C-alpha cells in the first residue's frame, strides 16, 4: 500500500448528502424548463415548427374571361411564369440580391423598392419580383437552384387582350394594385396582386378576380422541397367570366369605320341600355401593360397630348353642337314656347343684343348662304342656327336647362365603367356658383345650338337621342348582356312631340335638304342629328389651339328605326374641316348597316334552316353555352330623380 494511503475512511457524509440534493434539484429545474417548452408553450413552437417545414407557394387564380354577346372571347388568359423571391431568410436574400439583379435584369433599386414595399408582409410569404419571366429567366433560375435558393417560379396566367387596342378602353387593363386599391379592398387585395386598373377590368374586378390557392410543400433545413411528403393543397378558385353586351362584329365595323381619326363611338340598344359597341381613338394596346408597365412608358401614355388612355366615349366632355338642337326643339314643342308654328327667316345671321350671331350656312362652301323662312321641321333638317337662336331666347335658359338636365346632360349616365364624366349643362345658378358672375341673357343663344358652356359625352348623347326617340324612356347604358336591375328614367314626352322630333330626325337623313342625306340606307329607317362644335372646350382650346386637328368636333347621333329604335349610335370625330354629317355620319351608317345586315342574315338563316333542315350524320354542336353574366346591380353613380318636376336651375339657386 502506498505511503499516502491511510485507513482514512472519515467520509463527509453531510456534504455528500448535499450533493444528492443538488442533483435532484438540478434535474428538477431542467424538467421545469422542458415543462415550459413542451406543455405551456407547446402550441407556439408547434406553429414555428410547421412554419419551418411548410412552405406555401401561391397558385394564382386565373381571371375570368370576357365574352361578347355571342359568346366570342374578347379577353382571356395565357400561361406565363412569374419569379418569386422567398424572403424567409433575409440574410440569404441580401446576399444574393446582386446576382438576382444581374441574372433577371431587374435594376437593384427596383428590387430594393419592392422589398421595402412588402416588408410588412409575413416573411414566410414570397413576393413576386418579376411577373413575366422570359425563357432566359427560367433558365437562370433553373441553373441556380442550388446557389440562389431564394428564387422560385410559379406558373401564372396573364391577360390576353384583343390586339392593337381593340375595345381597349371599355375593357381596361389589369396591373399591380395601388395602395389606394388595397385600402379600398378591405384586405382582399395585397401588395403585388394584380387587379383591374381601369374599364371593365376594374368595374367587375371582384367577379373577374378569383381566389388564389396555395400549394403547401415540405422543405428541409436547406430549403429543398421534399417531394415524397405531400400536404393538402388549396386549389385556386378561378374568376368568373362575364358576358358583355358588346357585339364583336359591330365593334369591328366601328373600329374600321372610325379608322385612325381621334374620336369615339358608342352604340346602344335604347330598349335595354346594352352597349353594343364602344370605342375611343387613339388607343393603347393593353397587352403592353398586362404585365407591368415601366414608369417611363406610363408617363409617356399619360402625357401624350392625344390622350390615348382617355375613354372619349364616356370621358370626352365636348360641346354637342347642333345635336343639342333636339333638346331645344323638344323643349319648344313640350312647352309651346314659342308655338309649334313658329317660323324664322334666316339670312345667314341674326342680331341679338347688338351682336351678330351667324348661322353655319353663312360659312357654307357651296350653295346659298341663307336658309330663308324655316319652321321647326326644316330647321332641324337643315340645322338652322338662326331658328334655334330665336327659340332659345324665347324659351330661356331655365326651361332649356330643365329639359337638358332631364335628358341627362350634366349627369353621369351611370354606365358600369369607372371614371365616367357628367358633362355640363350651364344655368344661371351654375355661372353664379362656379364663375361668380351673373348669367348673360345672350348666352342662351349659344347654348340653344349646343355651343357655349354646354358639354356632353358621346354616351350621354346616345342615351339622350335613343330615349327621346323612345318617347322619353332613358335606359341606363351598361356593358353586361342581360344585366338585371338596369336603371331606367322616364321623362315622358308627349306623343305629338315625339312624332315631330323623330320625323325631323328621319328627315335629316331621308328628306331632301337634310344635313345627312348621303347616309341614306335602303330599307333602313336611319334617322339622326349631326352636330359640329368649333371648340373642344374653352380651357383645352387655349392650350392646344394651334393644333388645327382639334378645331372641330364632328358629331352624329343616328338610330334606327325612326320610332322606338333598336340601335342608336353616337359618333364623335375630332377632325378639322368637316361637319358632323360628313365626318361622323358615315361611321353611324356603317354600324347601323352592319347591325341590320347581321340581324337579317340571322333571321334568313333561321328560316332557311327550318324550311329545309340539312341531313346530319351526327349531332353538331353549334351553340357554345355561355354562363349567364353574374347578377350585378349596376351602380348608378348619380341618380337624377325623374319625378323632380322643377327646373334644375331652380334647385341650384
Amino acid at each position, binding site marked *: 500500500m502506498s505511503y499516502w494511503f491511510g485507513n482514512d475512511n472519515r467520509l463527509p457524509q453531510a456534504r455528500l448528502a448535499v450533493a444528492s440534493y443538488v442533483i435532484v434539484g438540478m*434535474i428538477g429545474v*431542467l424538467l421545469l424548463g422542458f415543462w415550459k417548452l413542451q406543455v405551456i408553450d407547446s402550441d407556439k413552437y408547434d406553429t*414555428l*415548427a410547421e412554419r419551418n417545414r411548410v412552405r406555401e407557394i401561391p397558385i394564382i387564380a386565373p381571371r375570368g374571361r370576357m365574352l361578347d354577346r355571342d359568346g366570342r372571347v374578347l379577353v382571356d388568359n395565357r400561361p406565363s411564369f412569374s419569379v418569386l423571391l422567398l424572403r424567409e431568410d433575409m440574410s440569404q436574400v441580401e446576399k444574393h440580391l446582386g446576382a438576382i439583379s444581374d441574372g433577371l435584369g431587374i435594376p437593384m433599386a427596383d428590387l430594393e423598392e419592392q422589398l421595402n414595399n412588402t416588408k410588412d408582409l409575413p416573411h414566410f410569404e414570397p413576393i413576386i419580383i418579376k411577373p413575366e419571366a422570359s425563357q432566359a429567366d427560367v433558365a437562370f433560375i433553373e441553373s441556380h437552384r442550388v446557389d440562389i435558393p431564394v428564387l422560385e417560379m410559379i406558373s401564372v396566367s396573364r391577360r390576353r387582350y384583343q390586339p392593337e387596342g381593340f375595345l381597349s378602353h371599355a375593357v381596361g387593363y389589369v396591373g399591380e394594385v395601388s395602395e389606394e386599391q388595397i385600402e379600398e379592398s378591405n384586405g382582399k387585395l395585397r401588395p403585388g396582386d394584380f387587379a383591374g386598373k381601369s374599364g371593365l377590368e376594374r368595374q367587375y374586378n371582384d367577379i373577374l378576380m378569383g381566389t388564389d390557392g396555395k400549394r403547401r410543400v*415540405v422543405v428541409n433545413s436547406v430549403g429543398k422541397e421534399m417531394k415524397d411528403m405531400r400536404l393538402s393543397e388549396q386549389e385556386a378558385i378561378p374568376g368568373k367570366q362575364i358576358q358583355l353586351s358588346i357585339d364583336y362584329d359591330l365593334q369591328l365595323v366601328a373600329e374600321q369605320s372610325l379608322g385612325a381619326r381621334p374620336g369615339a363611338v358608342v352604340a346602344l340598344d335604347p330598349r335595354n341600355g346594352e352597349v353594343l359597341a364602344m370605342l375611343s381613338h387613339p388607343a393603347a394596346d393593353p397587352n403592353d401593360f398586362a404585365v407591368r408597365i415601366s414608369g417611363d412608358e406610363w408617363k409617356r401614355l399619360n402625357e401624350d397630348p392625344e390622350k390615348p388612355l382617355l375613354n372619349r366615349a364616356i370621358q370626352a366632355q365636348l360641346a354637342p353642337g347642333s345635336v343639342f338642337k333636339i333638346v331645344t326643339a323638344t323643349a319648344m314643342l313640350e312647352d309651346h314656347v314659342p308655338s309649334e308654328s313658329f317660323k324664322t327667316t334666316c339670312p345667314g345671321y341674326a342680331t341679338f343684343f347688338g351682336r351678330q350671331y351667324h348661322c353655319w350656312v353663312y360659312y357654307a362652301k357651296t350653295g346659298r348662304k341663307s336658309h330663308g323662312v324655316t319652321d321647326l321641321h326644316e330647321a332641324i333638317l337643315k340645322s338652322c342656327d338662326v331658328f334655334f337662336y330665336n327659340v332659345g331666347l324665347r324659351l330661356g335658359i331655365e326651361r332649356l336647362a330643365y329639359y337638358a338636365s332631364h335628358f341627362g346632360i350634366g349627369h353621369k349616365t351611370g354606365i358600369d365603367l369607372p371614371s365616367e364624366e357628367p358633362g355640363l349643362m350651364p344655368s344661371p345658378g351654375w355661372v353664379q356658383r362656379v364663375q361668380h358672375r351673373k348669367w348673360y341673357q345672350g348666352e342662351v343663344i349659344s347654348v340653344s345650338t349646343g355651343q357655349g358652356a354646354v358639354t356632353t359625352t358621346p354616351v350621354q348623347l346616345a342615351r339622350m337621342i335613343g330615349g327621346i326617340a323612345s318617347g322619353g324612356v332613358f335606359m341606363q347604358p351598361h356593358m353586361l348582356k342581360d344585366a338585371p336591375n338596369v336603371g331606367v328614367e322616364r321623362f315622358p314626352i308627349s306623343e305629338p312631340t315625339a312624332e315631330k322630333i323623330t320625323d325631323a330626325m328621319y328627315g335629316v337623313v331621308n328628306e331632301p335638304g337634310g344635313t345627312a342625306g348621303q347616309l341614306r340606307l335602303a330599307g333602313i329607317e336611319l334617322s339622326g342629328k349631326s352636330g359640329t362644335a368649333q371648340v373642344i372646350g374653352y380651357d383645352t382650346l387655349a392650350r392646344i389651339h394651334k393644333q388645327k386637328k382639334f378645331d372641330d368636333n364632328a358629331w352624329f347621333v343616328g338610330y334606327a328605326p325612326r320610332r322606338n329604335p333598336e340601335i342608336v349610335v353616337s359618333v364623335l370625330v375630332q377632325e378639322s374641316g368637316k361637319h358632323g354629317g360628313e365626318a361622323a355620319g358615315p361611321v353611324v351608317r356603317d354600324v347601323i348597316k352592319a347591325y341590320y345586315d347581321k340581324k337579317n342574315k340571322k333571321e334568313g338563316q333561321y328560316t332557311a334552316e327550318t324550311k329545309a333542315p340539312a341531313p346530319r350524320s351526327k349531332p353538331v354542336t353549334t351553340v357554345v353555352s355561355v354562363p349567364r353574366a353574374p347578377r350585378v346591380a349596376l351602380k348608378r353613380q348619380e341618380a337624377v330623380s325623374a319625378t323632380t318636376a322643377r327646373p334644375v336651375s331652380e334647385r341650384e339657386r
Partner: protein
Amino acid sequence: MKNAPGTRDYDWWLLAILTTICALGVIEIYSATHGSSLAGMHWKQVRWLAVGFLLMFALSRLDYHLILDQAPVLYLLSIAALIAVLSVGHTRFGAKRWINLPGIGELLQVSELVKLVIIIVLARFFAEVRSDELDLRDLIKAGLIVGVPLILILKQPDLGTALVLMPMLAVGAFLAGLKWQHTAVFSLVGIFLIGAVFYPPVSRRILKPYQRERITSFLHPEEDAKGSGYQLLQSKIAVGSGGFWGKGFGNGTQNQLGYIPVRYSDFIMSAWAEEQGFKGVLLALGLYMALLLRLVQNAQRAKDRAGMFLVMGVAAALGFHVLVNVAMVIGAMPVTGIPLPLMSYGGSATLFVFLAIGLVMNVRLRRFVN
C-alpha cells in the same frame, strides 16, 4: 488485495440504468440518421458502446489504489499529450482536438482522456489532505493542478471540455472540507466570471470570436434566426413542438428535416424531446438522476476518502455534462459543444464515460476489501 472481488459485487443497478440510457441514445441516433447520408451511425455507436463496456470492466479489475499511485505520471503524460495535440493534432471544425491513434484508426479526442486523468489526480490530491478543513494553500495547489491542462485545452480551443474541469475541482474541494466562507467567495468569483463572459468589453479579450458569437446568439436567438442563433432556436422549436406526448419515433419534423443541428450528437436530447415528448424527457432525465444518485450512493459507501473523491469526480463530470447539455437544448445555456453522456454519438466521449464508470465500479468492488 488478495480477495478478488466477485461479479455479484458489481453495481448491477448502475449498469442497468447505464444500459437503458445507452439504448435510448442508440434508438434516437437511428431515428435521427436513418433517412440521411449518415445512416448506419447507430451501429457505429453500438460498437463504441461495446468497446466502452469492455474497457469499463477491464478498468474495474485494476485496483484504484494502483491507479492513484501513478497519478503524477498520468498527469505528466496527459500534459504532454495536450501539448502534442496542439502541435501535431488533427484539425476538425476549426479546432485542434483530435489525434490519430495508429492501429485504432479512429481519431481520439485527447481532452476526454485528460478529464479522466484530472479526476484521478484530484482524488489523489484531496485524499492526501489530512484535515477536515481545506485551507487556502491546498486549494491553490488544487487550482494549479487543474489550471495547467485547463489552459492547454482552452488553447485548442475547447471551451466545453475546459469547463468540465471546473466542477471536478469544485466538488472535490467542497467534499475535502472547503470552508463555507471560501465557498461563498468562490461562488461570487464564479458568478463574476460568468458575468464577464456575457459582458462584451471583457469577453472580447478572453473569448474566441466563435465563442462570443455563441454567447450573443444565446442571448438573442431570434435576432438572426438562421445565423448563430439558429441552433438554439431550432432546438427550442423541436423540444416545444414535441409537446407532452411527442411526435413519435421517426416523426419529428425538426429532426427528420434536419432543422436540429447535429441532432445525433450534441442536440440528441432535442431530437429525443421532439419525438418522445415530455414523457420521454421524464424518462431520460429520470434515468440520469438515478444514475447520478447511484454514483453518490457509491461514494457514500466507498471504503476510503480516495475512493469517494474518485466517484464524486466522475459524478461531478457527468452531472455537469448533463446540466450544460440539456440546458443548452432548452435554450437556457449557450452552445458549448458538450455532448450528452451516453446518448450523444461520439467515440471519445463514450469511452470517457465508460472508463469513468469503470473507476466507480472499481471503488465499489473494493469497498469490503481490506
